[in-house]
């Protein structure tokens, strides 16, 4: 099974990298960008086919390592 975990910064946490990218887009003339926040995507392959089990495993992976929940939120998707 394929799965994806998306990790994003919590609202209110300063994101200097996102700000720099935002500035670069403006200077490239890409119009209409209000703001940019940078995050991370993890594509994960899971053994077995039990969806509930996969979700539990992914949540554990995110809580224990992939996200620092002090500053980051995460979103788990089992893509099937």
């Amino acid at each position, binding site marked *: 099974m394929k799965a994806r975990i998306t990790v994003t910064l919590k609202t209110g*946490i*300063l994101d*200097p*990298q996102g700000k*720099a990218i935002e500035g670069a887009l403006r200077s490239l003339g890409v119009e209409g960008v209000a703001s940019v926040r940078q995050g991370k995507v993890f594509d994960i392959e899971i053994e077995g086919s039990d969806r509930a089990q996969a979700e539990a495993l992914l949540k554990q992976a995110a809580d*224990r*390592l*992939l996200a*620092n929940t*002090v*500053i980051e939120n995460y979103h788990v998707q089992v893509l099937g």
Partner: protein
Amino acid sequence: MKAAVLVFPGINRERDMARTLKLTSGHEPAMVWHADSELPAGTDLVVIPGGFSYGDYLRCGAIAARSPIMDAVRSFAGKGGLVLGVCNGFQILCEAGLLPGVLMRNENLRFICRDVYLRVERSDTPFTRGYNAGQVIRVPVAHGEGNYIADGETIARLEGEGRVVFRYSSPDGMIDPNWNHNGAINAIAGILNERGNVLGMMPHPENHVEPAIGVTDGRGLFAGLTEALGRAA
């Protein structure tokens, strides 16, 4: 002093740290590999040095914080053992949950490698007893992610409990955004855990201990630790 210096893949300041510990305490520290699950018997100080453990992959210190030796460090700290984390060591302590908060990218997005001034906020800790409260010391920094932040409640607690022990300052001890090179909240450069036995700091006091370097302001930290541990023994 029976110090243990932790070594992770990608750490590169462990020899500076070992040299300083030997020089200031007279005792050679043990170098302890991250995959070990126990600290040497009789260890009274754990030092997590600076560098780039696991190439700063995922987040600075994130992978090192989950290595086997860190369970031993957690239990050592739980019994009141002294733990010092410098630079990547500070990041590892935060990721391991031994200290609150997180070290974000420097505000200006640059890796900053130069001397800074620190105001020592307290002298009544095992780490700072070699200094006077309010004293300003000059020590180097070398980091891209040193911008300390935590949620408002945590910052209020740190401040209220006097757990901010080092702050970036001007040479005469003024807290000023111009002297806060990485943008850390409240110019925080070093903090203690609740119990006061775990210190994390971004600057490198271990690099300013020898007269040949020209500045010996880091010496007070190690001399103080040696004295504190000598007294306890």
